[in-house]
């Protein structure tokens, strides 16, 4: 027996259906929320406009193009106090990036070592690593930054302690690095045949040698890909894989070795001239302390992530790999690591993001990062809190979004392919 569905399906619309009918209720609710949010935004903007008018200020970013008038100790791109606030902010952003990238690399290396060591069968070593992780995870990052900075400024000798016949202090690492209470002097790379620099405009230059090395490394990596895919096709055709390791090693390393020989690249150690070290790179202790503290703190978190990732791969996987006759290192690289990475990568991304955001604690050691320039001296000099802070927050936001986007691309490559 058929009933006429269409006749009973649509009762005439009544106003109460906006609330009681599930089809309309969510729409009603969203409209109400939309109105409330818009009203709230309007209220905030209206307040801001009125407050700005009361203070006689305007909302514009013109101050960015005025003369900054303050010096920045560490300038990755040329900068003087005659440059604009915009350039000062760019220098600050680059300084943020420098400490973040250095921190991410070092924290990953240390974190992986500690995380694997915590799983070691060695009782003593595993316990020591547990203590390391618990101590660094359960105390504020600011504490570590302050302690390490205090070690540098309070305990290390001043540069002039390295003077004289019998100096009170001596350089470490074969007379290449000098730790002082003002800066850490490290060797620089020097070239006997400097090829000159590429001018990108706005006084930003790139040395041709740097570009040559980047090209050599990327080219080598690309050639290696070609080699490997060729080997794969040979294997698919004939069942025998040609030996590739020495060829891929050669295409990866030889071009760089050639460039090192061609440009005469060598390390130039700092030497004491008068009261200060010259010839090397004098890295401010703010940067070193911040970098070390970020590294140790984040490494403790990464160690836990790595440990959890390895533990998440069930024992049966490695046993199966051994049963197939794979050697331990192949088991690690082909079976365990790809599965562990799937678990490790997403939280690792958020640790990198945290490290980048935590680098804003540079304020505690006077390192001029983005917050120190745009959100610090520029803000205080121009009195434009609203613009400076909004711009700073947007920059950090864009930085975070870029990092998470890049890492998500990587994550998509390693994650489980579900077919």
């Amino acid at each position, binding site marked *: 027996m058929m009933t006429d569905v269409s006749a009973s399906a649509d009762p005439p619309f009544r106003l109460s259906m906006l*609330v*009681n009918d599930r089809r309309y209720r*969510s729409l009603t*609710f*969203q409209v109400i*929320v*939309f109105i409330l*949010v818009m009203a709230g935004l309007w209220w*905030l903007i209206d*307040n*801001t406009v*009125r*407050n*700005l008018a*009361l203070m006689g200020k305007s909302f514009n970013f013109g101050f960015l193009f005025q003369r900054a008038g303050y010096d920045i100790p560490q300038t990755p791109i040329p900068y003087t106090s005659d440059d604009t606030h915009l350039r000062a902010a760019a220098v600050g952003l680059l300084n943020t990036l420098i400490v973040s990238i250095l921190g991410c690399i070092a924290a990953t290396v240390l974190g992986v070592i500690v995380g694997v*060591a915590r799983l*070691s*069968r*060695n*009782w*003593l*070593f595993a316990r*020591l690593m547990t203590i390391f992780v*618990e*101590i660094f*995870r*359960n*105390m*504020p*990052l*600011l*504490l570590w930054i*302050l*302690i390490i900075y*205090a070690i540098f400024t*309070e305990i290390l000798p001043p540069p002039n302690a390295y003077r004289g016949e019998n100096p009170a202090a001596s350089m470490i690492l074969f007379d290449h690095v000098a730790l002082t209470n003002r800066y850490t002097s490290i060797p620089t790379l020097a070239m006997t045949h400097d090829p000159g620099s590429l001018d990108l405009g706005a006084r930003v230059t790139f040395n041709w040698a740097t570009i040559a090395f980047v090209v050599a490394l990327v080219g080598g990596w690309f050639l290696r890909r070609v080699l490997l895919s060729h080997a794969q096709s040979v294997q698919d055709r004939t069942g025998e894989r040609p030996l590739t390791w020495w060829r891929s090693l050669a295409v990866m390393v030889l071009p760089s070795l050639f460039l090192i020989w061609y440009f005469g690249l060598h390390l130039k150690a700092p030497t004491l001239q008068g009261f200060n070290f010259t010839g090397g790179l004098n890295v401010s202790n703010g940067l070193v302390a911040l970098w070390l503290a970020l590294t140790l703190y984040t490494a403790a978190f990464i160690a836990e992530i790595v440990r959890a990732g390895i533990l998440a791969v069930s024992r049966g996987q490695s046993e199966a790999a051994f049963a197939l006759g794979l050697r331990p290192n192949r088991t690690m690289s082909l079976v365990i690591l790809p599965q562990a990475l799937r678990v490790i990568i997403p939280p690792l991304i958020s640790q990198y*993001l945290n490290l980048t*955001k*935590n680098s*804003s*604690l540079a*304020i*505690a050691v006077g390192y001029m990062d983005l*917050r120190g320039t745009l*959100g610090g001296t520029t803000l205080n000099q121009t009195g434009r*809190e*609203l613009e400076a*802070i909004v711009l*700073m*927050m947007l920059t*950090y*936001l864009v930085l*975070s*979004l870029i990092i998470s986007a890049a890492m998500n691309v990587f994550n998509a490559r390693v994650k489980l392919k579900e077919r």
Partner: protein
Amino acid sequence: MSDTHAQTVAYVRDTMLPAAAPPLRESGAVRWLRENLFSGPVNTILTILGLLIVWFLVATFWDWFAHSVWNASSLSECREIIAATWGEGARGACFAVIRERWNQYVFGFYPQSLYWRPTMTFGLLMVALAPVLFSASLTIRRVVLVITAVVTLWAMSVLGAPVGWLLFSAAVLVAGLLASERNIAWLLPFSAIYPLLGVWFLWGGSLWGPIFVLVGPLLGWVAWRMLSGVSPLLATVAALLVTLLFWMGLAGEAARDAENILSLSIESVRSDRFGGFLLSLTIGVAGIALSLPLGIMLALARRSDMFLIKSLAVIFIEFIRGVPLITLLFVASLLLNYFLPPGTSFDIILRVIIMVTIFAAAYMAEVIRGGLAALPRGQYEAADALGLDYWKAQRLIVLPQALKISIPGIVSTFIGMFKDTTLVTFVGLYDPLKSMSDAVRANIAWKGIYWEPFVFVGAIFFLICFGMSRYSMYLERRLQRGHR
């Protein structure tokens, strides 16, 4: 069978040999050492490396700790004592600074005569937390509450609390203990009003303010009861409206009038007198209590079917997670007076609490979203099949399980937030780590003392954070239902 044996086998043993002790190298400490420390070349190298690290740490820090001085009034006096006791050139810690500046580290610049008030507040906090945190085991409750009662009352009487307040907190503590013996849920109303009570104890002022803040939801509840027969949605909206209108329109006036009629005031303390661990704990506890519900709401909003709600939640969460907490604190200290109507300004600690809360809530939302996603679809479908509406399904089926899954993440967010309370130093508040230690060093007697305050403050933070993480492990074990 046995016959065959007897004929073919020359000798059959009919008594068992007594079990011999294992060889020495396969038992006891030697075996443990062989297995755990020296099982192979790599392992041996690691052991030696580990011993070297231990030796280095002990050699570096041992004499410093062993020569510590606890009783002195200045750093130079410390050094004299160390030199006199352990010889010229000996190193030693001067923990006397902790002893001398204990009050400053704990209470900041809170008026000395009122130190008993924060003490009472945190003592009563344990009573308020009892039904939430230690509801499972009577023994744990007993231990915690008895220790709390003894310590709180002792500290209050030492700090010179008035007899009336001493009796009041004794009454609350004893009532808490009795309730915990009979039925811990009786304490829940106290937990509900504790936040207002705590704020009143800490900041002081008139009691009528908190009372009229409480009256708002009460009126809302009355409105809800009257209208819930007509339409549940209407009743909820009406309850919210009544509460909000009462708070915005009437509460302030009413509190002032009531105060004029009958004064219920205690001495008020301004926010800039807060400092040290009092400040950290106030911000930390408030942030923890507020960020969990906000985080749950954000997580639910992000998983909502409604496009607008979902996008708003995504924008909010990603924005907050994309910027450093320090910039949010700067917004709180520098920009908030741009966003509020001209002439208004409100308390800096409250602003910081709001910022810390929304920061933690955004992270919390992501943690809880993970828990919600990890829940099998069947649970949602079962809730629908039972005919539960959205909120009932969330409250009875989904959230209890999702929150249980997310406990480790939630607690790490709490720990992170508590550690981040030290950042308030950059907006001019006196956190124990930087501002307070700088203030101590500003005195000529303690100029140049760095390591002892760091060790002390670090140890306290470690104890609290480590305690929280152990508690989360206990909670996980307790809530485990063994279905995997």
